[in-house]
């Protein structure tokens, strides 16, 4: 299960709404105790995709490296990645799956007509052929 504290959740939703109709992305930092993850900090990242950003996102590895350094400085862990689906549900698409990493949780925020609608968290398997839904609290 993954629980996002109010402050990072507000950051994530605001970023997703501000970037609408494009997809947003960012990194979640926090703590992990067995399978219980708590997101304490959300870092908004620039969508680095060079094509149409209303249907794709890309995280710059350099930005993820900076986020990992920030997590270590704060004594936290990198827990996962968030991104938005403008005017789509918060499913984990084939593109999401094939370009994911089996190491992290992936929270997808559905933004409908510019406003947050719902969210889901996903855990890709090792082969990145399937993603299991992870209980999400926010």
């Amino acid at each position, binding site marked *: 299960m993954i629980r996002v504290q109010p402050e990072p959740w507000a950051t994530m939703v605001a970023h997703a709404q501000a970037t609408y109709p494009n*997809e947003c992305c960012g990194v979640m930092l926090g703590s992990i105790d067995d399978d219980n993850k708590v997101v304490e900090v959300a870092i908004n990242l620039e969508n680095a995709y060079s094509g149409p950003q209303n249907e794709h996102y890309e995280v710059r*590895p350099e930005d993820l*490296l900076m986020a990992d350094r920030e*997590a270590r400085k704060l004594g936290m862990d990198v827990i996962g990645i968030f991104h938005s689906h403008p005017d789509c549900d918060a499913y984990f*698409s084939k593109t999401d799956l094939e370009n994911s*990493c089996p*190491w992290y949780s*992936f929270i997808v925020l559905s933004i409908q007509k510019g406003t947050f609608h719902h969210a889901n968290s996903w855990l890709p398997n090792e082969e990145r052929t399937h993603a299991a839904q992870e209980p999400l609290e926010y």
Partner: protein
Amino acid sequence: MAKILIPTPLRQFAEKNNSVDVAAATVGEALASLTTQFPDLRKNLFNDEGKLRSFVNVYVNDEDIRYLQKDATAVGDGDTISIVPSIAGGRC
């Protein structure tokens, strides 16, 4: 010694270390040393052909080794090696 930073989800395969110091002259040697010390890390970082998995990037300090000398990139005392995944996606 170079220092390899272990991403959070992989620490379970490295006796919970968040970093591991290795004696190595190149990135290739450093990762070989790491996966010899912690064999369970191997399948997380490398494919069956022994190449880095498609989504795994390796940095020496702030530089992606693909733009240096790849596996042959020299490392030494004080260098930090980071393992950073590629992540992207899209609603369609």
